[in-house]
């Protein structure tokens, strides 16, 4: 390695940074003045409270009931977006890891023949505790998963499950450690814009492949949850993700002092997200709104549920040599 001059010093000395010409200043100032004038024009009618009151009353008469909960969700999310922008970013020094822990319960589906039962499929809920250590710069991820005791929708299924020793196949009670390097996570590969409008456009593009593709609110809701969960977003991006959520037709299911719950309908399911007042994802769940007779799942079943502890930064990985797969 060359022990000579720092390339940044060379850059500082040699790079050309011209002063703006009077024409540059005049052009830029003109564009700003246009923006200021445009805002004045658009804001003026709203400054007259009589116009505002009249328009509000008219809108309220037309859409009072459908918009009532949506606008509450929007207000709550906008407030949280503002708070999240002011939160301190989670700093990850070079070589350190972001550690997260989550408790999950997900729907598992196996062929009926695995259970030696005469039915096509059997569904059950499998709880896991999942600890993840992620080193962003090295694209390194270590995941430690501990599998808990499953729960069943039918006692016969439970009996058949243990008789067929499927608990061994599912590694019930075991802890499994996996390590990955050069992890190519498509979500992490994208440089997500910090501006909410640009972010929405980028999210649409990510989901649909093109900016013009139709995406559903539940698609955007799911991607927003992925971004909050996986990317350790800096405050400005977190705020914009929440603003994108605020623009969706969501229901506000809970409005507490420390957290809120918002949800969206998705093809017979309700997707719910719980956020702290600083915009941290605290929990997610999916509830079945229609019974699934094929799988024997009753209506209202929580088919997926995750709760997250706050991410923290650690300098070293724990030692799991006896558990590593």
């Amino acid at each position: 390695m060359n022990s000579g001059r720092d390339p940044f010093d060379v850059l500082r000395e040699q790079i050309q940074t011209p002063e703006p010409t009077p024409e540059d200043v005049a052009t830029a100032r003109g564009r700003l003045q246009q923006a200021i004038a445009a805002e004045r024009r658009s804001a003026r009618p709203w400054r007259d409270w009589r116009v505002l009151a009249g328009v509000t009353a008219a809108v309220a008469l037309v859409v009072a009931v459908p918009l009532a909960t949506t606008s509450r969700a929007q207000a709550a999310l906008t407030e949280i977006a503002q708070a999240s922008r002011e939160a301190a970013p989670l700093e990850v020094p070079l070589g350190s890891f972001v550690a997260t822990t989550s408790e999950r319960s997900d729907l598992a589906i196996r062929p009926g023949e695995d259970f030696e039962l005469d039915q096509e499929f059997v569904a059950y809920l499998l709880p896991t505790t999942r600890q993840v250590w992620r080193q962003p710069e090295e694209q390194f991820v270590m995941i430690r998963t501990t599998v808990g005791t499953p729960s069943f929708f039918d006692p016969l299924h439970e009996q058949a499950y243990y008789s067929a020793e499927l608990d061994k196949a599912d590694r019930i009670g075991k802890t499994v450690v996996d390590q990955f390097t050069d992890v190519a996570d498509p979500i992490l590969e994208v440089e997500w814009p910090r501006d909410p409008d640009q972010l929405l456009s980028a999210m649409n593009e990510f989901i649909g492949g093109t900016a013009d593709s139709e995406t559903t609110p539940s698609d955007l809701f799911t991607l927003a949850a992925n971004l909050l969960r996986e990317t350790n977003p800096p405050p400005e991006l977190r705020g914009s993700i929440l603003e994108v959520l605020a623009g969706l037709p969501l229901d506000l299911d809970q409005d507490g002092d420390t957290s809120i719950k918002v949800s969206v309908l998705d093809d017979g399911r309700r997707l719910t997200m719980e956020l702290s007042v600083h915009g941290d994802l605290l929990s997610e769940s999916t509830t079945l709104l229609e019974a699934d007779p094929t799988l024997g799942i009753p209506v209202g079943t929580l088919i997926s549920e995750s709760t997250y502890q706050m991410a923290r930064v650690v300098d070293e990985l724990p030692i799991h040599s006896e558990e590593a797969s």
Partner: protein
Amino acid sequence: MASLESDSELICASLGEPDCFALVFDRHFSSVFKFVAASVRRDHVGDISSEVFVRAFEQRNRFNLAYQSARPWLLGIASNLIADHYRKLAREDRAYRRASARAAGSRDFENGASERVDAEMLLPLLQKALHALRPEDVSIVVLFAVDQMSYREIAFALGIPQGTVRSRLSRARVRLRNFIEASGELRLDETNE
């Protein structure tokens, strides 16, 4: 209006009286312009610099009033626009390549492509070196090396952790050194004296 001292006071006042934002422009346009000029070709500098202030004006309700100076915030907006600019260039480049495959031998296309190459050749060595960096690293390098901002200021401006600033600078330093030395036009073990 004249008694307002800090940028945060000006921006706060501009929420009720938008014209106050023009003072923020007067204070920082030159600095933003030079930052942009260090990162992109001269013919794009005016557009991007003026767009920074339009965006800043439209997003001023998001400015963190705890910060006295608007400079890091403005440079953060500039940085996002520069990254967008590079992404646009990359898309255009891909489009040129696709068109090249479809329209091989097209005279008009060849002329267009050669103009682009010529323009790149006219760039000073160190600006070409900046172009060799990843788009997300260009702004960090310019903020650090040219604007001499601290890690903390860069982290605030770009909305990323300080550790990320450090690691990206470290990566960029290696790339810059390799690029400059490979070019043969400049030796890093020489001094200017």
